């Protein structure tokens, strides 16, 4: 990406966001059809993730994500087919061969690190990866993400503290959607901004509008530069919205009012970015229809492909406990 905001780039960002949204919506369809027992969404986080991804170098930088990072995965190079293999827990799912729940992403070839369900455990891993890269003198930036709820975990504190001591090339990316399942932010922390924590570790913390892809991209670019120059970590807090229930196992009507839900929809990052690109005359109806058609085909293809793919062989259940 030479020229920072060239049109192709701006359109590519839109495509990725729209693709993530479409794929995510398809997952819910499959869930309602009884084909996918579990779905957890990126809806409302697309701008934050795509904005972040655009500042990273796929296959060179390391990605230590969490379960909402579908748009990040696509932006780094995971294909819709691979995503769908994971959703349907098929043998060729690159994340885990169907062993983990959907959205527990991993992709070795893309330096996307396997994460688990216990929240926050990935953040220390990212710090260790950054430490290793620093030791080896490699030009690698490590990016790790987590929700604002997860920022309450001790692991996140310990990780940021060590990163601050050693000035590690790591970016802590907090996707703050205001809820940890049903628990609103005011019950999670005594502050407005998670980014306020950074100064307690000796590195910058910044809060950005996570529904604005360009704002996120800018903050990320600065953080990546900092890391690359050896100046250490940055904490970026992207204020997002969670447009769905926590997961397909949740019913957010029990704790969010209809008004709240409605208000949130006005902050839909895909809609607002589309509107922005139209107003800048970068996209118009025809171009958008073209992109959407292409996306639809991709999503259809991924779905069919994954549905046809084989399930894991039960005889493999005991493999890879240890190196073989």
């Amino acid at each position: 990406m030479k020229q920072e905001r060239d049109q192709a780039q701006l359109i590519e960002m839109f495509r990725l966001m729209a693709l993530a949204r479409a794929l995510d919506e398809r997952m819910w369809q499959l869930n309602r059809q009884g084909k996918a027992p579990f779905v957890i969404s990126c809806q409302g986080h697309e701008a934050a993730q795509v904005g972040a991804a655009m500042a990273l170098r796929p296959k060179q930088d390391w990605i230590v994500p969490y379960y909402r990072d579908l748009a990040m995965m696509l932006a780094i190079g995971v294909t819709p087919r691979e995503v769908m293999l994971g959703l349907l827990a098929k043998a060729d799912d690159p994340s885990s061969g169907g062993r983990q729940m959907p959205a527990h992403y991993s992709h070795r070839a893309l330096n996307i690190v396997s994460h688990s369900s216990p929240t926050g455990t990935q953040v220390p891993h990212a710090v260790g990866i950054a430490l290793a890269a620093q030791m080896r003198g490699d030009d690698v930036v490590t990016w790790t993400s987590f929700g604002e709820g997860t920022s309450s975990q001790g692991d996140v504190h310990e990780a940021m503290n060590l990163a601050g001591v050693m000035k590690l090339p790591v970016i802590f990316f907090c996707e703050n959607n205001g809820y940890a399942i049903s628990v609103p932010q005011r019950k999670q922390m005594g502050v407005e901004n998670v980014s306020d924590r950074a100064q307690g570790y000796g590195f910058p913390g910044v809060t950005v509008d996570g529904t604005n892809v360009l704002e996120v991209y800018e903050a990320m670019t600065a953080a990546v530069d900092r890391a690359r120059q050896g100046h250490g970590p940055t904490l970026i807090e992207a204020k997002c919205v969670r447009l769905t229930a926590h997961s397909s196992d949740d019913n957010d009507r029990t704790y969010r009012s209809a008004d709240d839900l409605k208000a949130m929809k006005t902050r839909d990052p895909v809609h607002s970015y589309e509107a922005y690109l139209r107003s800048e005359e970068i996209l118009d109806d025809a171009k958008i229809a073209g992109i959407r058609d292409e996306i639809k085909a991709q999503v259809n293809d991924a779905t069919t492909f994954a549905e046809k793919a084989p399930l894991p062989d039960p005889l493999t259940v005991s493999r890879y406990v240890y190196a073989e």
Partner: protein
Amino acid sequence: MAELNLLEAINRALDESMAADDRVFIIGEDVGQRGGVFRVTDGLHAKYGEKRVIDAPLAESIIIGSSIGAAMYGMRPVAEIQFADFIFPAFNQIISEAARMRYRSNNAWEVPMVIRTPYGGGIHGALYHSQSIEAFFTHIPGLKVVAPSTPYDAKALLLASIADPDPVLFLEHKKCYRLIKGFVPDEPYTVPIGVADVARTGSDVSVITYGLMRHYAVEAAEMLAKEDISVEVIDLRTLRPLDRETVLASVKKTNKVLVLYEDNLFGGYGAEVAAIIAQDAFEYLDGPVQRLAGLDIPAMPYSAPLENEFLPTPEKIADTLRDLVQY
């Protein structure tokens, strides 16, 4: 007398405890307005308010650590860990602190608290929403561990756990939550901590088990009854302190025993039960102390064909018992 499922019986016990004793409070993730992700605390937030049904930040160590402090102050916290798989960030607080407080202070301090948590597999929860955790905690002197398998036992044992002056880990099998129903008296009744239940009387072989496996064992026993094999099923209900007498009495009667649990086999809780039998009932044994348990893999996978491999099934249990009886 009402027919309740396991989840409802637990909800009743919480409600009754809170109504009877204003020192009792609930703390955990999503326990408030949401009523818990399984809805075990449903209605309690509305009834008792957010000061007694506390939605905690997403941080297990402080959920347990603050409960310890509150218990030392004189409260009766009931902490919920949303899934047993997520108890490990609080491991240090539970074993180094809650379980050792009375001993290390030479009886000056105590930690009367309950930690409730759903555990166990078979619900497509994959590696991190299916685990059995009792082996870690039953090894800890100072802690009690309760694992009821029926609504009747669950209600009474939760009331007993909340009343207990020592810390109790209360394990709720999540597959049993809605699957297992039973009559629960309206009038007060008790099931003491530390007493096993003879879930089924038999004479040819004993099964020592608990949790979901109690129900699978009873199923297996029913199959085998048709083949004239008489199986005794012991549901331990409390894992620590273990009711050694009931276990040994059953083995001394049948002379053959299967220790059954769903956790990974190696180093699981059933190893201790088997070891006790092998030492204390040695002279009565007419066959090896048999064990059947979950696979020795890191945890239950998500994809159905893999998930189905993990757990003992009533069929596998029956097969094992058949072999044992013929030994």
